[in-house]
């Protein structure tokens, strides 16, 4: 059996190695994605994003439990940050999900950001294709702990869950651009803490104002209490998954899913173009020493970045 067949049959080791090849940018990984791509597009992709320590991993664990009860198979991509100094990383998201580690229907893979700033890593897009072609019903992506504007997850997920916790600022934070705009479902996690109701009210106010610009999907706000209170926590997870399902139905019924998939395709094409054109030219310039010359011309003020890059364009992109 070749590795494409193995992956399509759900072989964990082959899939995990391919994800690693993607992360390490091995050229043979790209050819595997080319072969797998026709078999993708089946899995539902759900993204969880929010600040560090907001509870994304614990929620993911709860979601895994609930989806497994329904007999679903799930792939999880959990992203944690790489060190800007050493390139090392502590990938600790799966600590919260280890009870599912031996479940053959659950495949959890940790990824480091490796310098990517959008909240996920460069390999996430293709890693979704890998899990999708393994036949997973759901792919859950847990982003790195984020701030206000790491919104790249919106390009990959059908449904984005933004996880908030009480006590992170006043109502003005809720109307700011960026992360607050990309939620398809809001979770107010640790809702047993003071301030959860105020936060819920502020978000609802923001959403009701936004609803006037002919939005059809009204983003729901789900409060989920402490995981220690198991039955309440499970109730919260069920409510959350109910909204995730409704959102997916909305995407299909409204036809919005087509636009979403087009955006995703465009995003992936841009990334591939960047890889095949920009990156290639950059490496060429680096290797033949002309990058060094360009840098020197810049610092000596004998040329500028625009003139230099136009020279490169003229040399390499002849038809433009």
């Amino acid at each position, binding site marked *: 059996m070749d590795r494409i067949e193995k992956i399509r049959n759900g072989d964990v*080791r082959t899939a995990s190695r391919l*994800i*690693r090849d993607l992360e*390490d940018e091995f050229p043979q990984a790209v050819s595997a994605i080319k072969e797998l791509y026709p078999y993708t597009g089946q899995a539902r992709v759900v993204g969880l994003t929010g600040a560090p320590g907001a509870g994304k991993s614990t929620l993911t664990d709860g979601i895994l439990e609930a989806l497994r009860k329904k007999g679903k198979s799930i792939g999880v991509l959990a992203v944690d940050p790489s060190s800007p100094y050493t390139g*090392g*990383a*502590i990938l600790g998201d799966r*600590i919260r999900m*280890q009870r599912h580690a031996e479940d053959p229907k659950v495949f959890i893979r940790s990824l*480091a950001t490796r310098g990517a700033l959008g909240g996920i890593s460069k390999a996430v897009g293709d890693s979704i294709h890998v899990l999708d072609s393994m036949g997973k019903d759901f792919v859950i992506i847990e982003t790195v702990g984020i701030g206000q504007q790491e919104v790249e997850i919106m390009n990959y997920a059908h449904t984005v869950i933004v996880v908030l916790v009480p006590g992170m600022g006043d109502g003005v934070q809720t109307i700011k651009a960026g992360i607050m705009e990309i939620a398809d479902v809001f979770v107010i996690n640790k809702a047993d803490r003071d301030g959860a109701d105020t936060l819920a009210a502020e978000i609802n106010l923001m959403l009701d104002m936004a609803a006037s610009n002919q939005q059809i999907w009204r983003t729901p706000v789900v409060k989920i209490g402490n995981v220690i209170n198991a039955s309440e926590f499970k109730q919260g997870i069920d409510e959350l998954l109910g909204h995730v399902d409704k959102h997916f139905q909305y995407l299909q019924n409204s036809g919005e899913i087509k636009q979403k998939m087009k955006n995703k395709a465009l995003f992936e094409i841009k990334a591939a173009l960047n890889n095949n054109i920009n990156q290639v030219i950059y490496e060429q310039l680096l290797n033949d020493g002309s990058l060094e010359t360009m840098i020197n011309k810049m610092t000596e003020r004998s040329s500028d970045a625009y003139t230099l890059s136009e020279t490169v364009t003229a040399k390499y992109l002849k038809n433009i």
Partner: protein
Amino acid sequence: MAERKIRVLVAKPGLDGHDRGAKVIAQAFRDAGFEVIYTGLRQTPERIVATAEQEDVDCVALSMLSGSHLTLMPKVTKLLKEKSMDDILVVGGGVIPNEDIPLLKEAGVSEIFTPGTPTSLCAEYIKNNIHLK
């Protein structure tokens, strides 16, 4: 040309709750440039091996202070072998009596690091002994 990033699983099998050592070593490995998958406390050998498979690691580093290393460490190496994953380097650390070390090595644990070992030495050992895939 692309380069392999070293991936190491740091796990604590068994029931003792003392994870300071595991956290110190995880951070030292991070500082050595490794991607460290940290699973936390109370992991069964089965879970550790399943995790190693899903995460495609080069090395499994086991931290144990409970005294059950002669049971649990060989269990991990045995399971890895059963799944044809014995190309993964297994190292151990913790309070492990000197006379137990040869037994563990015989069971497939490559090296044991006892208290007082400089963390840089552990990272160096892993760099020099893994089989990058």
